[in-house]
């Protein structure tokens, strides 16, 4: 079963930037993704036009505060959102648009094309089913493996994620938080997907266990040559794990670029504030000087005029209430949505044209 839902010769009007610049064709291409929820008679925009690409074998981190839309993006990629959500734009997975796939094809893509590792492994695992049976389930359903074959594969998967094979007979409550997250990763790997979406995979874990899980994910992603989209509020974890970083604010990507550059020298004031919120132990600048960002993210149903970060921005200028900045080139391979990175003539066109198409540098 391989129906291509839209004609393959449709020209892409607005090519999303591939993760590695001029590299291999992106395995995942998200183009103008928007999600809004119907609530109280109105539409509340949760994601407002997000575009990015993810090349095979590369790792993209998506950061932002709660409510910025990062998890909604993750769920939209596999159409896991509730019915009240209205989705627009395109999500191309290996050229196929997930958003208008038929149900059967979508089922095949989930697990085998892309799989998700969720944050709370306790809530994502079935508490009354043995771990091994849960890992075998996608194999039996999607991989059409025979039961005996599936059992052998489960042992192999458990070994791959650093759990002893006898753990397949355990129930989730018999495992520690870190072990459960390992089991989740084994399940996500079961059908050999080419993309893993990890939504806050280490948030509830201790530093040492977090380090174990991050190393495991890194080894697997690199070893099996799969792409990864990792979502987290922790910019320091993403900077350490991913090649590229996208910072989201109020439903949009406000900065994107190579992970270490965005973390160490952000161009958008929001990314800069987020990065400063993670102190480097040993750095005299952050000793007895915790740094945060005053205020709260805007209510998505009442976004301010102009730049949505304006009310909290430490570097706000007068023009920020008029210009709603979109992503603009901000150095080689980097983009930021802030009037400060715009040159005067770019700013003029940004104010006139709602959707300018920036020239990609690098």
């Amino acid at each position, binding site marked *: 079963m391989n129906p291509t839902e839209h004609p393959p010769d449709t020209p892409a009007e607005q090519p999303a930037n591939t993760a590695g610049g001029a590299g291999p064709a992106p395995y995942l291409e998200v183009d103008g993704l928007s999600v809004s929820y119907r609530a109280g008679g109105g539409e509340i925009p949760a994601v407002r036009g997000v575009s990015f690409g993810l090349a095979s074998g590369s790792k993209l981190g998506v950061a932002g505060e709660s409510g910025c839309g990062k998890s909604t993006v993750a769920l939209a990629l596999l159409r896991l959102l509730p019915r009240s959500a209205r989705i627009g734009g395109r999500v191309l997975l290996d050229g196929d648009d997930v958003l208008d796939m038929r149900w059967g094809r979508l089922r095949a893509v989930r697990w085998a094309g892309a799989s998700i590792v969720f944050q709370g492994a306790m809530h994502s695992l079935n508490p009354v089913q043995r771990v091994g049976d849960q890992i075998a389930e996608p194999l039996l359903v999607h991989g059409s493996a025979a039961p005996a074959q599936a059992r052998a594969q489960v042992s192999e998967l458990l070994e791959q994620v650093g759990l002893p094979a006898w753990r397949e007979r355990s129930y989730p409550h018999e495992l520690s938080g870190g072990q459960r997250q390992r089991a989740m990763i084994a399940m996500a790997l079961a059908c050999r997907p080419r993309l893993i979406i990890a939504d806050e995979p280490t948030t509830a874990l201790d530093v*040492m266990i977090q380090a174990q899980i991050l190393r495991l994910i890194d080894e697997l992603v690199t070893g099996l040559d799969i792409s990864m989209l990792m979502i987290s509020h922790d910019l*320091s974890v993403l900077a350490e794990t991913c090649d590229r970083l996208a910072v989201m604010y109020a439903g949009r990507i406000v900065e994107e670029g190579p992970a270490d550059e965005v973390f160490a020298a952000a161009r958008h004031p929001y990314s800069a504030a987020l990065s400063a919120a993670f102190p480097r132990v040993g750095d005299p600048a952050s000793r007895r000087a915790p740094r945060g960002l005053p205020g709260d993210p805007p209510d998505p149903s009442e976004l301010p005029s102009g730049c949505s970060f304006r009310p909290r921005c430490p570097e706000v200028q007068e023009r920020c209430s008029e210009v709603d900045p979109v992503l603009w080139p901000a150095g080689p391979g980097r983009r930021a949505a802030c009037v400060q990175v715009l040159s005067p003539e770019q700013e003029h066109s940004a104010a006139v044209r709602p959707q300018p198409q920036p020239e990609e540098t690098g």
Partner: protein
Amino acid sequence: MSAEADAPGATDATAAPVLAAEGLEVAFTGRTGRSTARAVDGVDLEIGAGEIVALVGESGCGKSTLARALLGLVRPSAGRVAFRGRGLGYRPRELKEVRRRVQLVLQDPTGALNPRHTVYEAVAEGRRIHSGSTADEEEHVAEALARSGLRPPERFFLRYPHELSGGQRQRVAIAGALVLQPEVIVADEPVASLDASVRGEILQLLLRLRDDHGLAALVVTHDLGLAWNIADRAAVMYLGRVVETGTVEEVLAAPRHPYTKALLSVLPEAGAGEPQILAGEPPDPTRIPGGCRFHPRCPVLASGAAQAAGVAERCRSEDPGMLGGSGAAAQVACHWAHAREAEPTG
């Protein structure tokens, strides 16, 4: 460090500590047939006036149990908790007085606040328990809210927790503690459930309460960055014991215990050095290993460095002992660190 001398806590280090654990042990008896869990297994720890102490460790190391014992919520099986030099009594009346002066702030403000109580009621409740409803109640509630950074306080009186952001809820929880004018706050992972941007704001608040009002705090956390951000002293806990203690600069910038070193090495963006990821989970407090309790996971013992220093046998057989609680001098419970430092050439 000069910054250390400027800190209010450092000036009256000679006075009796506000709150102290002395040889404290807390054991939980297992269900029939199960062995006893020694959650806190001999800890000396002092919190001086106006001092912020970070108690750092992984889940299951006993740090929350120690905090609960300091609040009088769990009775120690040995040793004692002292408030201003006096042992804690466990009769209701004695506990009530101490509980006004030692306040708890929990991790998750959403769970800590009653969803059907307004902000005013949430903050006033503790005061009513201790002083009854007085005429100046509103004044005190307003002041506590203002000190927690909720200004103007009157605007928040009639709000419900669900109308507030996570950071505002944590401020309400802190105001509920401040309204009793405590001398020390015990905060268990006060920012773990908050967004990064809000986290800094709440930490600034704790720091300001100390600087402006001399409020001491014990902050229980697994987050070393938090300790670096606000604490004066740090105590690193492993399997029921404090294994390293000293000023934050000593413990976090120049760690001596292999466990502290490993914890620091796995921080994202730790920079120099290969991360030292310890295998496995923190061991079980029902089966504390003999000798040094860290020896089965110790990278120094595994690498042979302890053998080379001639202490490997002691690591396996001899308990390095308890550390003193005052933290006046940096201390470490490690045979290898002691042997290495005793060598004439560094």
